[in-house]
Structures are given as structure tokens and as C-alpha cells.
């Protein structure tokens, strides 16, 4: 997830990482990680460094360009998947129309990644 500052709106954080901020803490599927009070600013935005620290998410800084990249979590399973619950994914089709993975709930799905390269 690309950021220009290390505070972010919770819904944007969820879209970018798959982690939702709830009263129990940061949650993904059935997994919830408690967060300290310092995780949330007074305006409700998230202190990315606090949450990243708890979830073991690396932050890469490109100081020259004023950008940060927040990597995926490592603190829980040590695997690419923290949960077997498929998180929501919204991607465009070739005409730019958005498609949500959750629209296929109730069907068996094979998500097949390919590339032109």
C-alpha cells in the first residue's frame, strides 16, 4: 500500500491491506489483533507505524520521492496467508469497470493469475 504520510483513514487502510479496524483491534477474517490506544488519532485516522509494528508490516521509505510503502503482515502465521477467509478484492476489467470478488459468493471460484509477460 502506497502512502504519502504515515496516517491514514481506516477505510482506506482496509482497502489497501485487508485489515479492518474494529473495537477488538485490527481484524482480518477470524483473526483480531488488539491495538494500543495510540493506534488511533483523535480524528479517527490510523497511526500507521503503531499498527504496522503490531502486525509486523514493514514500511519502506523513499525519502527522495516522499513516499512510503506498507508491506503485508508477518507477525501472525509467517505465511502469505494470515487467514483462509478470502478478503474482498475489487479490480477493474479490461474496460475499467470495477468487479468485486464478493459478488461471486455462493459459487465455487478459481481465481487464475496470468500475465502478458
Amino acid at each position, binding site marked *: 500500500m502506497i502512502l504519502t504520510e504515515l496516517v491514514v483513514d481506516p477505510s482506506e487502510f482496509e482497502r489497501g491491506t485487508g485489515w479492518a479496524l474494529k473495537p477488538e483491534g485490527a481484524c482480518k477474517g477470524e483473526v483480531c489483533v488488539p491495538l494500543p490506544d495510540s493506534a488511533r488519532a483523535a480524528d479517527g485516522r490510523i497511526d500507521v507505524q503503531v499498527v504496522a509494528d503490531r502486525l509486523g508490516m514493514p514500511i519502506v521509505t523513499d525519502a527522495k520521492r516522499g513516499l512510503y510503502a506498507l508491506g*503485508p503482515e508477518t507477525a501472525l502465521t509467517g505465511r502469505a496467508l494470515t*487467514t483462509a477467509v478470502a478478503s474482498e*478484492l475489487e479490480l477493474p476489467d479490461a474496460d475499467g469497470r470495477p468487479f468485486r*470478488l464478493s459478488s461471486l459468493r455462493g459459487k465455487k471460484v478459481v481465481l487464475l493469475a496470468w500475465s502478458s509477460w
Partner: protein
Amino acid sequence: MHPKGVEIVTVALDVDPDQARPFIEAAAPDHPSLIDSAHVLDERFGMVNVPNAVWIDEDGMIVRPAEPASPGPNPANESFREIDLDSVPPDIREILVEARKIRSEPERYVEMLHDWVERGSDSPYAHTPDEVIARSQPRSAAEATAAAEFDLGQHLHRTGDHPGAIEHWREAHRLYPENWTYKRQAWNFEDPIRQGHTDAYEGSWFEDVKQIGAENYYPPLVP
């Protein structure tokens, strides 16, 4: 090809949608065919090469994590075998000879898919959540940092700073050398035909694949 009773969703992991679009238009698929220019999918599901697939059941549970997959023969692999080696220059010939060692098991994969369609959670090929997590790629600080570096690279490329992309993609390769997606996507911009050695990167498709042997390019299917 793939059985009825399952929705195939194809996702092009292409930073540049213009590269994927012609293939999609030529195929004119009747299934959802998406473009993931930010490479969100590979980060979310832990894909390290293409083609790779994930199975998700009716309740939105992943029952098979990312693995090499093709619900039918992979046209790329077939084309390696069909090209007459005497008709190509020596550097391409040596790449093809190595590429022919790439292994895949499309028939077995399709069998497994049929079984899951018929038997659902009773299929031995649909796994429990703990098993699914355990079967997904390892991810420690190096792999997660590589994902962040790759992310910065795709962002910079898409906002017109290709040299910036190269800087970060080099780091992604250094931190996660087993991730073919990061390498192939990056090399593609410098040398689409051979993905050969350029000043931009340390490796190349042929050099890097030879190091492990193309028979290990895709791990074997573990039903």
C-alpha cells in the same frame, strides 16, 4: 477445459494494462477477466509466478492457496515445444532448450478441479483453513519488504518514473529471489522478448532459471 459449476476469474498481473488488454480482447472470455496493475493479488494471496490459481468456496473460504495452475494446457509451455529449434538464433535456442524442461500437470489439475466441483468440501483436494495457511508461501520480513519494494516500483512506473521503479524492483529481487513475478514483470519492461540481461538488473530469465533448473521453475503439484 474447466468444468461447469465453477466460476473462473482471470486476473492479469500486468503493471501496464495496455499489455494485457489485447490478449483479453482476442480471447473474448465469457468469464470475469480483470487487470491487476498494482499487483494486489500476488501480495494478498502469495503468488510467486504465473499462471497461479486459488480456489475459493461458496462461503468465501480459500480451500487451495496459490499454486501453479492451468485449467487446461498452458499455451506458453506448448509453444516452447512446438518451435523448431533450428529456425531460431542460438541465444533463443538455448533459452527454449531450458524452457522445455518446465514441468506442469494440467491434466491432473483439471481432474482435481472436477472432483471439487462434484464433491465440494468432501473432495480431498479442498483443504481446511489451517492446511491452506500452512500450504501458502512463507513470508518473513524479507518477503514482506520485497512486496513493499515491488509496490513502490509499480507505483513509480505508473506515475512516469521508470528509473525509480527499477531502483525499487532491484531491491524486491534481492530480497525475494524466488519470486518470479517480481523478476519477470521487471525484466519485461527492459527486454520483452528474451527477458535477457540488461544494465537495469542483476539477472535474466535464462541465467536465473538455469541456476535452479527449469524443471524446478514451478514446484510440483501437491494434491
